[in-house]
């Protein structure tokens, strides 16, 4: 479904990735590895359409993602290094906004999502009072309320305790089983049988 052909990414003047090709189809999980500074984040930002690649093609359902970005973004959810919520708003307000921004009506409710991720008791606190791990979990909660097909996650396990790590692995695994796609970077070894590794170190 997602096909990458001959992709090159540049950050500043530094070429990071050259001639990379791979594809991810339904029910697959791609685990991107590489040393620090190898260009994992740059690659993910290209994949979700935040940065434009220096060369090469990224196509979703056989169509270059640049030709219809809104249609692609309607099926893609991204969790970056930054959690992407506002500290002054509560968990509920942040998730409601994330859902409204998605535009489409989704089935799962915000309450159910917060319960699932163990954030229900702190739902009415401004999120700046939550711990790092809880804030990370809230960012991942966004994946659930948005109900997108393709998940792109940049170091989703950072700041999570072992219990939450297992929880997240379960959520990703369910997503894959239901025919979803996931791409993530992580320095953890994943406990997921379906995962496929891609190392982007050069030379």
């Amino acid at each position, binding site marked *: 479904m997602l096909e990458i052909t001959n992709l090159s990414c540049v950050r500043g003047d530094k070429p990071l990735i050259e001639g990379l090709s791979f594809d991810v189809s339904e029910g697959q999980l791609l685990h991107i590895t590489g040393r620090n500074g190898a260009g994992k984040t740059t690659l993910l930002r290209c994949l979700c359409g935040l940065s434009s690649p220096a060369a090469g093609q990224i196509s979703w359902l056989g169509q270059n993602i640049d030709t219809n970005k809104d249609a692609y973004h309607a099926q893609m959810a991204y969790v970056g290094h*930054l959690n992407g919520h506002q500290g002054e708003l509560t968990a509920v307000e942040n998730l409601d906004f994330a859902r409204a921004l998605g535009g489409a009506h989704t089935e799962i409710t915000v309450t159910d999502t917060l319960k699932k991720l163990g954030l229900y008791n702190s739902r009415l606190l401004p999120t700046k009072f939550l711990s790092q791990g809880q804030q990370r979990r809230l960012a991942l909660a966004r994946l659930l309320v948005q109900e997108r097909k393709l998940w792109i996650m940049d170091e989703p396990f950072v700041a999570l305790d072992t219990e939450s790590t297992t929880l997240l692995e379960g959520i990703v695994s369910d997503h894959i089983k239901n025919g979803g796609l996931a791409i993530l970077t992580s320095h953890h070894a994943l406990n997921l049988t379906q995962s496929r590794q891609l190392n982007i170190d050069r030379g």
Partner: protein
Amino acid sequence: MDKAEQKTGLFSVATALFVRDIRLAARRSTDVFNPLVFFVIVVSLFPLGVGPEPNQLQLMAPGVIWVAALLATMISLDRLFSHDFETGSLEQIVLAPQPLTLIIFAKIAAHWTLTGLPLVILMPLVAMQMNMTTDMIYISFLTLIIGTPILSLIGAIGAALTIGLRGGGVLVSLLVLPLYTPVLIFGAGAISASAQGFSPDAHLSLLGAFLALSLTFAPLAAAAAVRVSLD
């Protein structure tokens, strides 16, 4: 998704963003009050500095009010995108499956509601210190209500271009000031003209034309600038 559903979708996204920005501002109230307090202080200092000669104050009033409003708006531009950028919310906003122009337009509308509109409401208060007549206050009201949206719209382009830059504030001023000067000239000009017994219509029409122009192009330009800044 059929056409009608898509349309309500667009509208609800814009509303959701507008409501969120107002709510955020309410919980971060210093951000809202800084430019307003600045506006009141600057105008209040003039009678003290120049001397309490009523005619002289009245002569200067249009310029003083407009310069103060312009600088107050400029101080507030920094907060338009910076919080969203630092928290990563801006990435999520750019990745929304809706036209970015519309979303940015909602942000600009929220910015005006929080900066431009309060300035318009505060203006009569400070205008009295400058010995403005009721007629002059009425024209000032008109010029500001047409002019402050232009300041927010054009300012958004500058703010979007300097997202994430250190010392962005100074750069925004340099980028945006040349574009603000026509608004200043015609805004203050309208009030002066009416004080001298001429019709302010020509000035007001030109301000209206600037508003129409910036309403059309500024959200487009700001949206493009946001994309470039995040790349």
